[in-house]
């Protein structure tokens, strides 16, 4: 099976990536689904105040030492770039 060829070298990497996600969710007690809902609500609130490009939005959870951080990268559409009329 192809899976055993290259992936053997990366099972530790896979473990690490999985653990990163698992630990964040364990620590914050937020499931993937709840996080998704929260992101959508965030975007809705921000959209009420400024125009954003939803496709360019990046919201993620990161670990910094023992702390968890929610990082949002939300490009805003400035008024000069809005189309008139």
């Amino acid at each position, binding site marked *: 099976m192809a899976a055993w060829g290259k992936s053997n070298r990366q099972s*530790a990497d896979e473990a690490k990536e999985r653990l990163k996600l698992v630990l964040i969710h364990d*620590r914050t007690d937020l499931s993937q689904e709840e996080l998704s809902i929260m992101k959508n609500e965030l975007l809705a609130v921000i959209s009420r105040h400024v125009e954003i490009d939803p496709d360019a939005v990046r919201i993620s959870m990161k670990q910094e030492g023992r702390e968890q951080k929610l990082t949002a990268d939300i490009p805003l559409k400035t008024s000069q770039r809005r189309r008139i009329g």
Partner: protein
Amino acid sequence: MAASVVTITSGKGGVGKTTTTANLAVALAEEGQKVVCIDGDIGLRNLDVVLGLENRIVYDLVDVVENRCRIRQAMIRDKRLEELYLIPAAQTRDKSAVSPSDMIRVCDELRSEVDWILIDSPAGIERGFRNTIAPADMILVITNPEVSAVRDADRIIGLVEAEEKGPVKLIINRVNPGLTKRGDMLTPDDVVELLAIELIGIIPDDENVVISTNRGQPVALDPKSRSGQAFKNIAKRIKGETVPFMAIDEKGDFLSKMAGLFKQGGD
């Protein structure tokens, strides 16, 4: 001579708490320290067998807590070393027999008599765990470089932080150099990055540990064993000395006394 109370815990069972408690106790005693270790795993005691002292139990921790004996009567003296004592757990009771304040009281009584009190925590996050962290001045979290152990260790660290107890330091046990080199085992750096606490020891997986438990002769007594050397290094670091971590060489074996691969020189 006020003792430091060190609790050894993990969350997950079977990662090496009892083995570590026994061997750190031996290593510290070999350095001339006066050590009492306490088995906090009421109902599932094992520190006695790992130390090879199971035939000398007369009184146990619950007898002390329930005032059926004086604390000195429950202290089994290890005849192999100058000043190493064990207070065993009770086997026919459970964790509810002891409370966190009981543990604090017992440790307070011992503090002026010894240099170190090492407490072997049971697995889990319930009463037994809470009992053993209550009196702690320092907490050592043991993990293995694998997914379940690391996850449980993280939970334990979170609980310890929530109780505002600390400092918490990490021991990574059962490191397999071959698997690590092949990319099929989390490296100590990976584990430290995920758990984000200070590393105090790395212990290689060692067949000698099984043999030593079979005989009731902790590996730290064997100058030829790699894991024994690792336990001795941790004992020195607990005392505040700087000791380089053992490194993996190209062939995948451990070399002793070389810093090399692991960047955590935070001794």
